[in-house]
């Protein structure tokens, strides 16, 4: 298995008093395979390999660590650096309505994540509301309504008729009227080849002027993650990332690639379908899972 081979590569390297180029190459090869199986973008994998090799040859700091620890440390550091280092939090600005627009590919988990973030903030005593900005998907409003049932979180829904932009703008007025601190906006799924939908997202961002756009990414996305994230970033600068479905077997390497290319931090991960199956992002945990 992958983690067995990684362990063996590690043992193999650390059993040597002197580590040759050949042994480093063998270890790096196993790391590369782990990252590729975890869906990390191929270019990023080779970039990381170079960084780990460098760290190995000329370490940035003097640790006095054993060879084995230095190897593990270099590997982890390379990955964690991409993720922006330590944990990042969703910043709620004081004395204003914070508007967060959720965007992402069809089926990535936006609607569910809107519910989860709303619930998370409500538990922390934030005055939070939700706007159902998806006027396309059948049952989208019902889905949100059912997700938020029993939470006391207010939901803005319009009967079908207005465009997504209009609904969201009306929703923002509603949120201000309720003197909310935060309003979360659900939008319809879209991908980079759907030009009119990407233009619609641009229009939403330009006319609503949110505090931040949150990109929701499915942990199982493969090598297309980077290109898709860049396309979203072009129409709406990505402020934060949420990775969903990490309770499956997918490692979320695509999310790592997306973060690397748009430079936004991952703030939450979805680990199930329920409102509470949601965790604040932990870079070390994420990297450990990625490396098997």
């Amino acid at each position, binding site marked *: 298995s992958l983690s067995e081979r990684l362990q063996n590569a590690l043992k193999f390297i650390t059993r040597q008093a002197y580590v040759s180029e050949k042994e480093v190459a063998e270890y790096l090869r196993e790391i590369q*395979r782990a990252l*590729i*199986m*975890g*869906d990390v973008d*191929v270019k990023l994998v080779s970039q990381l390999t170079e960084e780990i090799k460098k760290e190995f040859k000329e370490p940035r700091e003097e640790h006095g660590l054993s060879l084995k620890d230095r190897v593990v440390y270099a590997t982890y550091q390379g990955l964690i650096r991409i993720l922006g280092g330590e944990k990042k939090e969703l910043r709620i600005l004081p004395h204003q309505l914070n508007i967060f627009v959720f965007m992402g*590919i*069809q*089926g*990535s*988990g936006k609607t*569910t994540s809107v*519910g989860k973030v709303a619930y998370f903030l409500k538990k922390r005593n934030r005055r939070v509301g939700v706007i159902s900005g998806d006027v*396309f*998907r*059948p*049952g*989208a409003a*019902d*889905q*949100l*309504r*059912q*997700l938020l049932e029993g939470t006391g979180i207010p939901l803005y829904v319009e009967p079908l008729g207005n465009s997504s932009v209009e609904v969201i703008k009306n929703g923002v007025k509603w949120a201000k009227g309720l003197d909310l601190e935060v309003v979360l906006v659900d939008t319809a799924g879209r*991908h*980079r*080849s*759907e030009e009119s939908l990407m233009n619609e997202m641009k229009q939403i961002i330009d006319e609503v002027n949110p505090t931040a756009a949150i990109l929701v990414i*499915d*942990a*199982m*996305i*493969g*090598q*297309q993650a980077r290109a*898709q994230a860049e396309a979203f970033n072009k129409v709406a600068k990505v402020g934060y990332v949420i990775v969903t*479905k990490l*309770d*499956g*077997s*997918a*490692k979320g*390497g*695509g999310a790592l690639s997306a973060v690397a290319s748009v430079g936004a931090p991952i703030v939450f991960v979805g680990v199930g*379908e329920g409102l509470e199956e949601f965790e604040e992002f932990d870079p070390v945990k994420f990297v450990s899972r990625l490396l098997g």
Partner: protein
Amino acid sequence: RPLSREKIEEILDDYGLKLIICDVALPLVDELKRTLAETLEGRRTPLFDRDAVKKLVEQELTLFLLKTLGDSQIDLVEEARKSQKPFKLLFIGVNGVGKTTTIAKVAHMLKENGLSVLLACSDTFRAGAVEQLGQHARALGLPMVFKKYGSDPASVGFEAVHQASRKGVDAVLIDTAGRMHTDINLMDELKKIKRVVEPSYTILVVDALTGNDAWNQAADFSSHVGFDAVILAKFDADVKGGAALSVSFISKKPVIYVGTGQKYSDLKRFNPKEYVSSLMS
């Protein structure tokens, strides 16, 4: 002159990388390189034709990929027509891949071809699931069987098949809740639904954007529940969709349709030759 082992490996590494970038799962790329290395070893190419080597490798690669995809062509309309009534289709897959939307498209296709269709919402779990399929049913002018949230999903399937038989409906399409293939309880629930419904075909829906995890999904759904064919949704978002190869290889089942958008008409027969040539371009 004969191809050297080194030359072969170098060329295969290049093609392997291309396939990885197209989301073909790593274990399949390994298998492909192993197989092709054996096939190509010692093969002769004209001494001064640089392109001959490339042509030979691409030829063997194309054969391997086409063999992986198989040649079983399942036309759901034809199968429905010649099937004993009701023709029963069960749709399964992980969360958010496109099952519900794909069912609506298949329903539309069958209806366009003169068949009567009954929809069954065996997703009694997810928020808004009944409303979502219900709206599709209304838009398509089709009846739908459903129960309240929290009901036993197998009972919805049973009810639908029973109703379809009584009313002489040609086809019944059964939607199930998305679920992780790693969740044993949910896989057991699906086994039960399948046992109760006895589908003519069980269809695994996979998201075309999926990376290496497509391999795991196909392996686990295949071993825990079993399926007969695959529909790759969101093919408009990823035309290289290497997941098609990963899934076919590990399950030995064919990809029969691809979803190419969000309209009812966005469902196309999967064409292995076109797919492979697009992958190789």
